């Protein structure tokens, strides 16, 4: 269907006033607003509807466009959040460019808030409609932005999260490129002995996951390799991969998963850590795994280097690791004493808490210490103040195990800069929204899972890996990427390249072109928030659909 080119014609604006049953009409005079609208400049048709969003209301809009040859449509009803997409698609179905539609909110922002004052509510509705009509006259037709999509995904990191994401993506029929910097995949899981709560060997789990990925024909595995450079954006990334000691390889992908995990803190200088009689949980895992563990009297200390002024966060999984290992120590040697000194046992959920009950029942000892009076590790005994009884206790030990937090990897920051995605104050990758978009970055097409985001146990990393796979599938299963035409543009003639807009852009959608000394908007990444337009000192950045003349027309109509 060919769309009309309204800018060549005289303004023919249609205004549709919605009663919303009694929601609007009950509190202001919709008939009077309609009559008023019909006399506004450029308006050739005004109609009141009982419910503009109902089938009958939509028919009215489409009939209006056809019969009155409308080239702009204004609907005065509820919030754009509820029905703007519906009204826009109705315009498109009647061969009117959907960006020649303007919505005026006379419900949430008028009738609902002025229920007690019918006369003024009616007047305000008229004002709002007049503003909308004024802006509508300056609207321009736009085309949705389309971009191609390469149906392949890059997964960085071959730990539990990365392998889970890669396996799932491959199973959905998408090609996967998996880059792991170590010579073998598996991540920290490789150094773990057995897993909670069932006690299976971690090595078996890795093999299972790795085999599942390796046997897929659509997975390309780069071991001992690093991502060296990144170009492009959602749908079309060019990734430069450098295998250790080899020449670089380029891969084209549509989406990227950051699954680079985290590492346990080495507690140098804390509680007499020496790697021999005072070790970390990870070192304990190695001894359990190799059978080299000989200790009978084991004291574990929680929150070593965590929940402190220097590192405020709780690392989530160290308590469950400690309890799991305490039980395995006593399983090997039922005579062994294991004493866990803690601040809060973070055994959230069903299986973890059960494990805590079980450990207590089996004879693992637990004692609370206060952070202002932490335990001290002596030559033969650990002493601590027990607030419960008000006395200082000494526990003889032949092994002290320190539970240290997972911390961000050294190279996380470099990777974050490469992909232009943020990290938080602790160096973990920062998701787009803590609650509603836990696996997305604000930048489209890049995702995060597992301990790269925040410490996660194997189950959680696997679930998050699957989650990321489905986030990617929602993009790459489509033939092409279609996004709204409401994006910013920067006038290259007037831009002075101050980069003020770049700093404001929450989506990394603006780049500086050093050769031309100007900034440029990537319309695929732009979300149309308008931050750049509001910032630009030379008015070179403008948001389509919200250009100065459009907004000023609205303002001047007040």
């Amino acid at each position, binding site marked *: 269907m060919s769309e009309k080119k309204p800018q060549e014609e005289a303004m023919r604006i249609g205004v549709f006033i919605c009663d919303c049953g009694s929601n609007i009409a009950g509190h202001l005079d919709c008939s009077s607003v309609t009559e008023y609208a019909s006399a506004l400049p450029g308006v050739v048709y005004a109609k009141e509807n009982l419910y503009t969003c109902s089938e009958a209301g939509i028919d009215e809009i489409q009939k209006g466009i056809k019969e009155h040859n409308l080239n702009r449509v204004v609907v005065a009803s509820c919030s754009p*959040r509820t029905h703007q997409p519906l009204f826009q698609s109705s315009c498109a179905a009647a061969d009117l460019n959907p960006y020649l539609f303007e919505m005026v909110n006379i419900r949430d922002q008028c009738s609902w808030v002025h229920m007690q004052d019918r006369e003024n509510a009616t007047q305000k509705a008229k004002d709002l409609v007049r503003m909308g009509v004024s802006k509508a006259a300056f609207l321009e037709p736009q085309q949705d932005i389309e971009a191609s999509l390469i149906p392949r995904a890059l997964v960085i990191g071959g730990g539990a999260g990365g392998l889970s994401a890669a396996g799932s993506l491959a199973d959905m029929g998408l090609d996967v490129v998996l880059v792991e910097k170590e010579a073998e995949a598996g991540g920290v899981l490789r150094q773990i002995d057995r897993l909670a709560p069932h006690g299976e060997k971690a090595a078996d789990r890795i093999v299972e996951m790795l085999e599942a990925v390796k046997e897929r024909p659509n997975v390309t595995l780069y071991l001992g390799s690093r991502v060296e450079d990144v170009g492009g954006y959602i749908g079309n990334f060019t990734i430069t991969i450098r295998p250790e000691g080899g020449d670089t390889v380029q891969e084209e992908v549509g989406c990227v998963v950051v699954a680079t995990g985290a590492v346990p803190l080495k507690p140098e200088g804390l509680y007499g850590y020496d790697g021999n009689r005072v070790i970390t949980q990870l070192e304990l895992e190695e001894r359990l795994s190799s059978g080299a563990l000989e200790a009978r009297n084991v004291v574990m200390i929680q929150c070593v280097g965590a929940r402190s002024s220097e590192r405020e*966060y709780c690392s989530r999984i160290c308590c469950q690791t400690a309890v799991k290992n305490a039980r395995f120590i006593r399983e090997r040697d039922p005579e062994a004493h294991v004493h866990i000194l803690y601040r809060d046992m973070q055994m959230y959920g069903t299986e973890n808490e059960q494990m805590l009950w079980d450990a207590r029942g089996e004879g693992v000892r637990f004692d609370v210490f206060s952070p202002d009076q932490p335990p001290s590790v002596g030559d033969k005994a650990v002493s601590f103040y027990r607030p419960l009884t008000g006395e200082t206790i000494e526990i003889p030990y032949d092994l002290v195990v320190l539970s240290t937090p997972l911390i961000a990897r050294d190279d996380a920051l470099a990777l974050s800069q490469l992909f232009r995605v943020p990290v938080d104050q602790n160096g973990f990758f920062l998701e787009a929204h803590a609650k509603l978009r836990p696996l997305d970055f604000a930048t489209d097409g890049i995702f995060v899972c597992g301990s790269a985001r925040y410490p996660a146990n194997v189950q959680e990393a696997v679930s998050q890996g699957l989650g990321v796979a489905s986030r990617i599938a929602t993009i790459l299963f489509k033939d092409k990427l279609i996004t709204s035409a409401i994006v910013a543009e920067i006038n290259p003639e007037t831009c002075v390249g101050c980069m003020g807009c770049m700093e404001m852009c929450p989506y990394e959608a603006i780049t500086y072109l050093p050769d031309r000394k100007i900034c440029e908007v990537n319309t695929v990444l732009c979300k149309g928030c308008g931050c750049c337009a509001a910032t630009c000192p030379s008015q070179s950045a403008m948001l389509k659909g919200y250009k100065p003349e459009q907004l000023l027309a609205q303002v001047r109509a007040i």
Partner: protein
Amino acid sequence: MLDVGRHPNIELMAYSEVETVEGECGDFKVTVRRKARYVEEDRCTGCGACKEKCPTVLPDAFNEGLGTRKAIYSWFAQGIPSTHTIDADHCRQLNGKKCGICQKVCQADAVNFDQKDRIVELKVGAIIAATGYTVFDPARIPEYQYREIPNVITAIEFERLLSASGPTAGHLHRPSDLLVEAEIQDLEKKARKSQKVIDKFEQKYDQISADFYEAYQKGDFGGDEARAKWAEKYVSHLSIVGPLETLKKEAEGFEVAKRLAFIQCVGSRDFRFYPFCSGYCCMHSIKEAIIANEHESETTSVIFGMDIRAVGKGFEEYKIRGGNQSGIHYIRGRVAEVTEGPNRNPVVTYEDTRERKVISRDFDLVILATACAPNKGAAQLADTLGIELNRFGFFETGKSQPLDTTRPGIFTCGCAHGPMDIPESVAQASGAAARAAQIVTASQMRKAS
């Protein structure tokens, strides 16, 4: 919600239940009962004119019974689909009485009293059971006296009190005060009614009731039946007005709750009920305490917990901020009992395990952080779906595939398979979608080849 509501690939069947599941992974046949709402979903525009006029007032379950709704209602204002439902148990028309007002006022012609349940058959490749959880009923813990003391409430009830769209518009009025205010309203209504009756007598005899009654008591009007009636009405009027005045005086002293106590692990980590940890309640209490402090900066809170489990991203920092900036004090210990003291204040008795003392302390309001219990219908749904429950009553999941139930092709996420917070539920929801997509694409690829 809106996104789901208008997604072209999602068919939303609200107010519906799965009845049978046949077939196997990649090829399930599911029957769904679409329960009669007595409102045509595709016609109803959600305008709400019907519920304005409906004469039947009921406790609002969405607001935890703290407010009211009508027999025709929407579960909550922003619900999707944006439609209404008639509560068939309480609707006058559906129970044989004369009414039908909603049908008359509905301009969209959406009310249909003849609507019947419909059975719909679906063919699907995979199923995701995301049926959530039930809040534990704290009345089962006698020592907290949840039913007996009005100012002992649950975390969800507190959430509704804090909500700007809730029954108190976000003001922390104490439930005991709300009860008194409801009584005042009730008595005022009665007083107005009886005042009218008395006014008539006063007009008729041109005398003030008090004067008349004094004379009457002296026996001035012996045998006058009409005046005897007046006297009777006057006495009953006084029996309304007297208590009304007392209550009004009492209500003048009402203040919003400013000293809050949060009791953690109510029903959780408790062998009498649920041994597991509900995971999110510590953060929920901290959040509620912080928001209460934002509403009213003098608000202080004590959170009583065995461990404060702030285990998510940014949670420990949030907990510390609550302590430093929002007047929260954390006390390690399990509360032994709650009693009621003067001024209807709940009194919390606990052992402060750091101070090694048993202490009784009164608060304006006690909030119970109730357990995340397996959903009431979980066992039945598990039976319908042919999946197993774990030892805690949630859906059992796989060792290496944490979102797979025990039946291939059926997945789960969120609190249906164990307590968890929002970010984890959201991440898992995407994960379950991926597992389902793996099945569906595999069967499509099989068909294509």
